[in-house]
Every structure is written in C-alpha cells, then in structure tokens.
C-alpha cells in the first residue's frame, strides 16, 4: 500500500472533515489509527528527527492541554448533571462533554496535518498542487518563504543583539519594550526589503517574469488517480454526511 502525495492529501481531507463532523469517540479512535499508521506504514513515517520531535511534542502538549481544558470546562460551565464534587468544587457533565468534543477535534486535526507535513517534503506537495493548477507564482512564493523562514532566526538574533549592545530598552518595562520593537523590526525589514528587491532582480535576470508558467519537473509527480485516493475522497463525502447519518 503506497501513500504518495495525492493519497496523503485525500487522507488528510478525510480526517479533517471527520474531525469536524464525527463524534468524539470516532475522532479519538482515528487519532490512535494515525499514531499507529505513522509507526507501521513506511510512507507515513516522519522524514527526519526534527519532524518526528515536532509530532511528539505538539501532540503531547495538545493532549495535556485538552485534559486541562476539559476539566476547566467541567468546572466553569455549570449545566447538566454534577459528575463529582471534590473540596467544594463541582464538575458538570455538559462541560466535560463539551471539552472532550473540542479536545478530540483538535487532536485529530493536529495529528492529521502533522502526519501529512511530517512525512512529505513541502516541495513534493507544492509540485503536485502546481500540476493540479495552483499558479506557479504562488508555488514560488511558498518556496521563497521557506527560504526566508530558515534564515530569519539568525537575522533576528543578530539585530536583537546589536540593538541590545546599542542600549535599546529590550529589558525595560512593557511600553519601552513595545517601543523597542520598532528598533528591532525596522532594521530587519529594511535589510530584508533590500534583499527581496535584489532577489526579485535576480529572478527576472534568470528569465522569471509574470508570464512564466513554471512547473518544477525536477520533482517526480504522482498520478492523482489510485484506489486509495478515490477511497479517501469517498470517505470524505461519507464523513461530511455523518451528522445526518447519525441523526
């Protein structure tokens, strides 16, 4: 069973629709399925240690957060039966049910998207979407964004240190710190604007212009038609109809 870009996109769509329409039990079951699939299906494994760590840490944070929020909902939304009382605090049924529903939804959404982006190169996804009609300039924008994001922490660090060395009030009280934002953001934006203008020139000087119909064919593109793709798309429609099917 091969999960290529089209199958993964269709699966993600199916999981996202289910997270919005399905009951919490189904969402939590699917979260477990996602966790299992990530371990046993080679195509769904994390690409590298960073994505694997991100998957684990984000899900662990969300899981703990969901439990806390469920409890807080149970305490603060005082509707329905009291499930239990402890030290004068009552926990209500409807609040807990609400917390579980939204927590399960967030967990499924997150795990579905982390599974997609953790196991697939962004260039593979954009190249596939490009072939399916996403304009070349949007694809180019996404690629350049990834490049800028990668270089941003070092730029910010450099400017932040320089401003601190010049005596900018980066550790003073809140209003001064907000004012010092301009001192940090201005050089960052100025240098990045100069760089983006130079990059714009460089792109045009390599033949890139508004009429470019560039398709990145250095990335192998998968045919969108397969049993799994059709299956997941069909299941997405079923998931969309779940509220009516379950009454």
């Amino acid at each position: 069973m091969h999960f290529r870009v089209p199958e993964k996109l269709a699966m993600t769509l199916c999981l996202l629709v289910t997270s919005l329409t399905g009951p919490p039990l189904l969402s939590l079951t699917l979260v477990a399925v996602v966790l299992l699939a990530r371990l046993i299906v080679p195509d769904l494994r994390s690409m590298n240690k960073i994505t694997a760590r991100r998957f684990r840490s984000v899900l662990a944070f969300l899981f703990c957060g969901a439990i806390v929020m469920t409890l807080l909902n149970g305490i603060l939304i005082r509707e329905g039966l009291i499930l239990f009382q402890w030290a004068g605090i009552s926990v209500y049924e409807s609040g807990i049910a609400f917390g579980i529903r939204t927590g399960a939804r967030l967990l499924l959404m997150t795990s579905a998207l982390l599974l997609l982006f953790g196991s697939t190169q962004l260039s593979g996804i954009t190249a596939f979407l490009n072939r399916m009609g996403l304009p070349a300039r949007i694809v180019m924008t996404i690629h350049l964004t990834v490049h800028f994001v990668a270089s941003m922490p070092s730029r910010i660090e450099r400017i932040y240190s320089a401003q601190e060395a010049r005596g900018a009030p980066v550790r003073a009280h809140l209003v001064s710190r907000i004012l010092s934002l301009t001192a940090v953001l201005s050089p960052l934006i100025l240098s990045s604007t100069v760089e983006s203008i130079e990059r714009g020139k460089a792109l045009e000087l390599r033949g890139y212009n508004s009429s470019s119909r560039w398709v990145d064919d250095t990335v192998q593109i998968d045919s969108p038609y397969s049993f799994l793709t059709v299956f997941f798309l069909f299941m997405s429609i079923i998931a969309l109809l779940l509220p009516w099917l379950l009454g």
Partner: protein
Amino acid sequence: MAPRIIIGNLTYRYFAAGSPVFSGFSLEVPPGSCCALLGPTGSGKTTLLEILSGVAGSQCKTSVAEGTIQIGEDRYQPIPQSTLFPNVGLVLQDPEVQISGIRDTVTAEVEFTLEQLSVPAAERQRRVSDVLAHLGLSPLAQRHPMEVSGGERQRIALASILVATPSLLLLDEPANALDSRSQHLLKDILRSRKGTTTILLTDYSIDFALGLADLFVVLSDGRVVFQGTSSDLFRALGSLQDHLPLEYWKLLQGRLSNTRVKVPS
C-alpha cells in the same frame, strides 16, 4: 553571435525630479571584446549594467531616460523596458541572492534557469552538465548551493546565467570577495568566452580586469572620463587626477604601477 553595444547620449534619472545618474553618456563596445567599467563608488557602473540587462527598465517604476541603446541589431529608445535574458545575462555582485534558494542541489539550481526558458528536460540536463564541467563545478553537482565556498558560489551564480548562453555577458564586481585562486579560475573561464560573447564587467580596483579586458572605461559621476587600453590608461592617468576623487585616483595609480610589467601593450 557576439553583439556590438552602442550607447548613444544616454541620460538617466531614478526620479523625474532627481539628479541624473548619467547625462549625455556615450560608449561603444566592439563585438566579442571584454570591456571593464572602472570608477569610484556611485559613479554609475552597476546602474549601467542594470540598464543594459533590462532590469532597470522593468523594475524601477519612476525612472526617466533619454537617448538610445543598441545591442547587436536591436535598438532601444531610450532603454530596454524588460529583461533581455537569455540574450543578455547579468551576474549580480552578491552571488547569494542570484542563487534562488529554492533548490537543494547545484544541478537543480542551475537547471532552474532553463526551466524558465521552457527547455525540454533532456536538453536541460545536457546543458547543465556541460556548463558545470566548463566551470569546474562537476564535483559539486549534488551539493547544496548554499553550502559551498564563496568562490564556488560565485561560479554557481555564473553557471546559472551562462547555461542560457547569453551573447552579452554582464558581470557586476565578479572578483568581489574572491581569493586569488578563484579569481584566476574565473578569469580563465571569461577569457575562454571572449570572441563568442561580448563581456562587460565592473571592477572597482582594476586588478581583476587587468590581463582580461581589451577596453577600459573609467566612469565618474555618470560620465566617461577615459576609454582605451590598459597601457593608454597608465599613460593618461596623470590627466585623470582632476576628474576622479583623489583616493580613487591613488588606488588606480598604485595598482597600475604594481602591475605595469604584466599589462599587454
């Protein structure tokens, strides 16, 4: 075929109300030759290359120009309004920005240029492999383009333009921040293109252009204050003192005196 360049009476301003970068500027560069543009910072060297490449006309939304520019058979009045790639290729001063940053290998980076030109995949691979071999980059073909040395990055930037085989090659300070070995390598590459390609390069300190360029043009405040061979330049240096900032004049004098024996007559 290498084109002749004729710039006639060019006047160029960034803004209508601003002072001119060039005023009545004229220059002729013979086909297949290598012309070095020298001059202090702010003399208009880079702007001239940007005008010739077409990127100035395309991107400076408020600029105003008069005069004519002829590149081979093509005549532009006053300046090209869109980039003339692939006929004209400009290698920018900073190779880091010329590298797109969106490809993971040197091969894919150079190939990106040909994708813009809709060259078929098989021909792309052949041309990329040829240009990498020509520039001595074959061993780096699978390396990440941002994880190489400064000299190698400069050659990758050059490869990304040369792969489109421009007949007019413009280079903005190509020797900037290159060690002497990389400079020699780059000089050999450019020498091998002379004859089939007209080359215009800017060189603040003349070192790189000596032994490579056939025609030396000294700019100051957007005017041509000298044009001729390196020997002519050495002879005329005394008369240029009034036209150039003293510091820059001393730099030229020092460099030319040091390398006088190597200067071809």
